[in-house]
């Protein structure tokens, strides 16, 4: 899914998973978790809604994942792990999925979770969520008893559980009473380890430890978004501070213990203080040049390949700064669909103006204009496209750079509108969740139409019963997307967060902010 939704920008959030707490290297070995205290977190901006079924922006999900839970969730290795379910099983024909629910799980109202709540939640999801298309293959739901929930599918779907673990537009379970509530109109009641406290829009939001929380005792400890969750802090106060310098100032003065989205050029201000530290949250997303395959010159595959051949990744990442690592693939290392060295990736980091010129000649290029569209809101995007423009000029292309605002830029990419050949964006959890999650983005952003090989590869993917076959199909998909220059991968990228060394106890799982199992060291 696209991380850079337009609404995301309005709240200052650049990417999903913009923050995860760190392993806190300064933590002494004997540190014991301590209960109590208020953790204050400086976030870029506040959520517009806490309705999980319609939320895709980081600032919303940073609250939502601490308040709500789904049937399944991503674990530390990005695999699927039951969360509200105690067990999830698929039938041999992959058309029926049965979930056994954990017993005694309570909503924040004190009511017990039952299969009726699960059914009502998924029905609501199908009605209100922009991501509802992922449930289109569902024939019906069945609730034979309060602790069993069954999904019947119209056709086999081997990746349904992978769909249900999505951290954006998450499939969170709400009380059945919320079933008919409109999008963005729910009462914020979940089963998560925190419940919602005071919320003053644009100012602050408080989540409080839910003392009635029923942890998953089958797990030895925390595990990604799942596992046994323990809350040590009494409450967490999110403060919405849009200006980076002010967020850092709040960290320096001790007003907050954690701050998100630290610009690279300001990290030193934090690191020069012995009581503070900076954490690199990596990987958070992958950056791409998007090539519009339905507009002008770039409808020609040879021109797209020429553009890809001219790109020098190191030049781009050197210019943009930040936390970047080269990766030719559309999955992060250590995820099930990462292909690593198992296959060649001849489209990546070619940096050959000569090859680009050769392809241009073959395409019959006559110095027509190639339009690059970028935006005034995100410096890294602007820098990326300015460097790309120079690289294309070096390969003999006639380039025009157009700067618009991010909302317009994003809308053009998502809808294939506007007059542009190249642009750039960042994609996030798609790199974790895999091809099924990528699908709408792959087709929408470069406006891919009529590519039979890609359609066939996707068909193969959805029909493949085992992972190896699906990985083979994923290779074909990437060969189509990257090899034919619809999208040009730049790098995997991360973000910086700043924190007080008083804040203890996190894993290094780079997910969306998780506030369970952290504590404040009173002696720090």
């Amino acid at each position, binding site marked *: *899914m*696209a991380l850079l*939704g*337009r*609404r995301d*920008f*309005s*709240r200052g959030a650049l990417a999903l998973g913009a923050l995860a707490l760190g392993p806190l290297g300064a933590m002494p070995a004997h540190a014991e978790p301590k209960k109590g205290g208020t953790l204050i977190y400086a976030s870029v*901006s506040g959520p*517009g*809604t806490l309705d999980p079924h*319609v939320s*895709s922006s980081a600032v919303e999900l940073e609250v939502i994942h601490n308040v709500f839970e789904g049937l399944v969730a991503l674990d530390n290795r990005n695999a699927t792990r039951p969360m509200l379910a105690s067990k999830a099983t698929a039938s041999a024909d992959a058309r029926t999925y049965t979930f056994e629910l954990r017993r005694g799980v309570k909503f924040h109202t004190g009511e017990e979770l039952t299969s009726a709540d699960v059914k009502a939640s998924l029905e609501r999801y199908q009605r209100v969520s*922009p*991501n509802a*298309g992922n449930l289109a293959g569902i024939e019906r739901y069945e609730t034979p008893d309060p602790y069993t929930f069954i999904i019947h599918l119209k056709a086999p779907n081997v990746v349904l559980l992978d769909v249900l673990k999505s951290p954006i*537009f998450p499939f969170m379970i709400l009380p059945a009473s919320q079933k008919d509530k409109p999008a*963005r*109109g729910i009462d914020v009641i979940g089963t998560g380890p925190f419940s919602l406290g005071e919320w*003053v*829009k*644009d*100012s*602050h939001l408080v989540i409080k430890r839910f003392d009635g929380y029923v942890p998953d005792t089958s797990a030895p400890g925390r595990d990604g978004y799942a596992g046994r969750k323990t809350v040590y802090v009494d409450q967490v106060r999110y*403060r*919405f*501070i*849009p*200006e980076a*310098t*002010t967020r850092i*100032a*709040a960290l*320096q*003065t001790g*007003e907050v213990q954690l701050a998100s989205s630290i610009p690279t050029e300001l990290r030193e201000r934090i690191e020069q203080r012995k009581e503070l530290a900076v954490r690199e949250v990596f990987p958070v997303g992958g950056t791409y040049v998007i090539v519009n395959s339905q507009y002008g010159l770039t409808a020609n595959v040879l021109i797209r390949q020429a553009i890809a051949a001219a790109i020098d990744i190191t030049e781009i990442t050197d210019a943009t700064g930040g936390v970047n690592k080269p990766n030719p693939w559309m999955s992060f290392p250590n995820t099930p669909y990462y292909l690593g060295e198992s296959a060649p990736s001849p489209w990546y980091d070619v940096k050959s103006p000569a090859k680009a010129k050769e392809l241009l000649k073959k395409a019959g290029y006559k110095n027509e204009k190639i339009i690059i569209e970028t935006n005034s*809101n995100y410096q890294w995007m602007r820098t990326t496209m300015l460097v790309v423009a120079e690289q294309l000029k070096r390969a003999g292309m006639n380039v025009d750079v157009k700067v*618009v*605002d*991010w*909302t*317009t830029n994003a*809308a053009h990419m*998502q*809808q294939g509108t506007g007059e542009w050949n190249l642009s750039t964006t960042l994609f996030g959890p798609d790199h974790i969740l895999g091809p099924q999650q990528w699908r*709408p983005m792959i087709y929408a952003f470069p406006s891919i139409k009529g590519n039979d090989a890609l359609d066939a590869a996707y068909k193969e993917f959805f029909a493949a019963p085992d992972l190896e076959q699906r990985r083979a199909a994923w290779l074909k998909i990437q060969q189509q997307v990257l090899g034919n220059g619809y999208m040009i991968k730049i790098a995997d990228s991360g973000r910086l967060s700043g924190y007080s060394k008083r804040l203890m106890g996190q894993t290094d799982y780079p997910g969306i902010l998780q506030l369970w199992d952290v504590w404040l060291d009173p002696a720090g």
Partner: protein
Amino acid sequence: MIRLTLLKLLQAVPVILIVSVLAFLLMSLLPGDPAVLIAGDQATPEAIEQVRRNLGLDRPFLEQLGIWFLHLLQGQFGSSLMLNQTVLSAMAERLPVTLSLAGLSIAITLPIGIFAGSVAAYYRQSWVDSLVMGVALLGVSIPGFWIAILSVIVFSVILGWLPSSGYVPIDQGAIEWLRSMILPAIMLSLFQIGFLARMTRSAMLDVLSQDFIRTARSKGLSEWVTVGKHAFRNALILVITTMGILVSTAIGGSVVIEQVFALPGIGRLVVQGILARDYPLVQGVMLIYGFAFVAINLAVDLLYTVADPRVRYD
């Protein structure tokens, strides 16, 4: 006075009408489709069309305009798309913050600006004049954004005197409220003090060179009475005009200050609304701002009659 007020209110009607139409035109002038924003990143064309229908964006332009005015006449300023609440309630929540900021900033600006301008005029072409005008020039020239960030670093991080950001409502303690607002208010007033000082100096110089001041002095009136009463009263008209501008710039300037100091006021609301293409919100706020500026100008016009009995509008 009542007749004058009514006359001024009547004159405000076409202004408000124009502001209303301009606010409405935002929807069609700005690039980007709000329906796409609301429907979300992965919405199908059908879902986007459904949102467009729900918002009435599929109707003819004039019909949309008619509906907009009809709603305005019913006191409906629309509902924010991103906040899921009405524009009026969103503004009402944030109004105390912006009013606190603007009010405190004006309270700081007026005495300092008028005093500095008067002193500069009285000691014209002396080192005092040069010093005051030099500082005033700095005040109007320094970018608000830069000085605000610098003030956070100096007064919060280095000196530790004040909190770096955030707003404490006055009902949670007047001292804490003042601590949260004083730095933003001073930063907002820097430009205004400089501006007011320069305007006051200019007005006072004008008046101090007039015959009646010489007469007052030759009558043996003290300098305090001559300058403080006779000169200042006559310079007041220009100062009142400037005050109208100051209130307007305080509200406008609050956008930047609220952003830097993380104050949940109307300025920040507008910025978020624009970035999120929350058209109803921006339209509503723009309209209410339009009303507010009309009211400010009306108040200034009425104050003229109080300050200068010669001013008559009939």
